[in-house]
């Protein structure tokens, strides 16, 4: 794997330097210029490419003092061949809301990681963290020390609240119906303890999207998905609508006909929206951003339960609270979260996500448990099977 000079001879990986898209192999090689760790990473990866299999062992538990998460332990199963990656742990560093940085902040992170690790990162991990990719056990604490001194902290791993993330929101998007970045930052900060010290049955993710476009995939990837929306009518600028029409947009075909509720009418001159029937899908607004905008009464819908397929199949989040005004969002959310976590803590099985727990005990029982009244917005449709568990002992339950 290594030629006479100790340089990685990586014929297969070299193939991945070719082509127009930026190459991760080039990145590893760049890092290898200052980090011997990366030589061995290349070497082991080349073996994986040859043998078509991972050469990492199932992770062990490593971390920094007082934290139960934020580090993923990783060991090579070819430590003799590639001693520099015998340990190759990652640190998950909590990113700032919206993934905004100054050049200085980035350089600080680079300097720390060059000193203590491979110099390789993921910007960012799928949950949103800055991922410091690969270091040894005894570098963990020093890295952490420098990070916190620079104002950074670790993100989540294990059975904790995971690093919340959010879309760019009001920082640069005209559609944000609440301040996603403030909410994400506040929740992250409020639940520091839950982020760093595993006390849950399993992981719990928050994602904040400012509108139903859901640019942070909250509905698919977060146990609690906060999605901005509005309650009143779409703001409409008729002159701007006319301009779109004049500039060649086929409003009938590309806007009205694609409206999921067919609640728009275009008579060639005037666009009429039957707002009572609009489901706030964003399509018309997306197509005509200068002419249409979300209403003025802004806020968010809170949905619960998304997750990947293991164990009982993937879940999408579903509506828990149809609308909270923006001003009340954080209070409502915190009140809600504490009840949800209490319920989950009491009834959740080990490695059972909240969405799975709801499926297991039933949504109605879950609502009872957290003290929320059922509303029809929570369901796509009412049950179609007659297998109803009626409650109570008296003669008139269920009426």
């Amino acid at each position, binding site marked *: 794997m290594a030629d006479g000079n100790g340089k990685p001879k990586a014929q297969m990986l070299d193939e991945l330097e070719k082509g127009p898209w930026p190459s991760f192999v080039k990145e590893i090689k760049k890092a290898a210029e200052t980090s011997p760790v990366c030589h061995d990473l290349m070497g082991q990866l080349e073996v994986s490419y040859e043998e078509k299999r991972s050469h990492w062992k199932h992770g062990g538990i490593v971390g920094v003092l007082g934290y139960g998460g934020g580090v993923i332990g990783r060991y090579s199963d070819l430590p003799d061949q590639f001693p520099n990656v015998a340990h190759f742990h990652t640190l998950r560093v909590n990113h700032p809301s919206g993934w905004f940085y100054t050049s200085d902040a980035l350089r600080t992170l680079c300097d720390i990681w060059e000193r203590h690790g491979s110099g390789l990162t993921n910007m960012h991990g799928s949950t949103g963290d800055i991922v410091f990719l690969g270091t040894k056990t005894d570098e963990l604490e020093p890295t952490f020390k420098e990070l916190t001194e620079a104002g950074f902290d670790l993100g989540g791993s294990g059975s904790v609240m995971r690093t919340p993330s959010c879309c760019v929101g009001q920082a640069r998007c005209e559609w944000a119906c609440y301040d996603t970045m403030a909410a994400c930052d506040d929740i992250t900060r409020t639940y520091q303890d839950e982020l760093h010290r595993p006390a849950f049955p399993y992981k719990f993710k928050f994602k904040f999207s400012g509108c139903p476009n859901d640019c942070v995939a909250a509905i698919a990837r977060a146990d609690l998905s906060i999605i901005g929306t509005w309650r009143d009518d779409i703001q409409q600028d008729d002159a701007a609508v006319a301009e779109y029409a004049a500039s060649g947009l086929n409003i009938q075909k590309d806007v009205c006909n694609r409206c999921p509720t067919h609640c728009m009418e275009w008579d060639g001159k005037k666009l009429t929206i039957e707002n009572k029937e609009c489901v*706030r*899908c964003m399509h018309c607004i997306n197509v005509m951003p200068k002419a249409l905008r979300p209403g003025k009464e802004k806020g968010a819908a809170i949905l619960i339960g998304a997750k990947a397929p293991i164990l009982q199949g993937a879940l999408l989040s*579903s509506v828990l609270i149809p609308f909270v005004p923006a001003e009340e969002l954080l209070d409502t959310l915190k009140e809600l979260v504490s009840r949800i976590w209490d319920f989950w803590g009491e009834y959740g099985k080990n490695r059972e996500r909240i969405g799975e727990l709801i499926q297991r005990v039933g*949504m109605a029982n879950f609502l009872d448990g957290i003290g929320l009244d059922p509303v029809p917005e*929570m369901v796509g449709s009412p*049950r179609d099977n007659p297998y*109803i568990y*009626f409650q109570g002992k008296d*003669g008139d339950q269920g009426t």
Partner: protein
Amino acid sequence: MATAPVKRITDIGPPHYEKFLHPMIKKNYGNWKYHETLAPGVLCHVAESGDRIYTVRAGSPRLLSVATIRLFADLADKYSGGYLRFTSRNNVEFLLEDKGNIEPLKRELAAAGFPVGGTNNAISNIVHTQGWVHCHSSATDASGIVKCVMDALYDRFTHEDLPAKLRIALACCLNMCGAVHCSDIAILGIHRRPPKILHETLRKVCEIPTVIASCPTGAIRSATVNGNPSVEVVEEQCMYCGNCYTVCPAMPLNDPENDGLSIWVGGKVSNARSAPTFSKLAIPFIPNNPPRWPEVVNAVVNIVDVYARNARRFERVGEWIDRIGWPRFFELTGIEFTRYHIDDFKYAGLTFARSAHLRY
């Protein structure tokens, strides 16, 4: 007096339908061109040959005495050459060659108390089941409720003024012989108490493993009662489906105080426009209130009226609700949304509102 054994006739099957076909139908079989509606309950089918057959459809209580069947036979002789048929919703249809016979037939039917209608966007007859007239399993009566509801919807049978077809069905227990599960409006008899186990009978007539296996929720466990092997029901796990009773007579569910009706909406069978779909829960429980079940009648009439006022042309009940959304359905009908509406059976998760598509 000993008689020589006659050969017993078996396995002959039903009479061949051809024997019963109107000559004009036989002639134009497979060669119909189009049809028109002349009036509610009166259709005219035109053949490629130019022939026209007129259908007059009359409502029927389905539970018919031979006297009434003979009346129909007489009317058929008089007006339709002796040819008639019944429909898949238990109406009776007279097949007329002579257009001039339509009105006299209608008059005679009216005089005998049989309304003509049920076509197109009228409400047709209610598909239903046995109830207390013949079934042990029933949580309610069938014919009685049907009579009351149809009395109230009589004008909807004789007029075609709804936005689209509206099919009502009734079944008196969860076996759903009325196949109510795909109806615009379904009336379903339900039990709400676990079976009361008759241990003595059980011991004699039921197989315990079969009884245990019959329960979809696993609520039945073996147990020793008075020193004998029997079963017990974990009450919290029972949702009163009655399947254990079906396999074992010693597990009756009848309970006058707790049996009653539920109302389901938005199902359909046809492939027209939207795909066939199940009815969804609208009202979880209405007590039995014979002989006229006013609460059930009001509930159904209310849903029909709200639908008639709000749906667009060619929108079946379910298609209308799809457009306006369930929250508005509950709002417009004034029906309360409860914990029972939220599914908790096997596909429950898929019925949750898994998008931010929201109306306020």
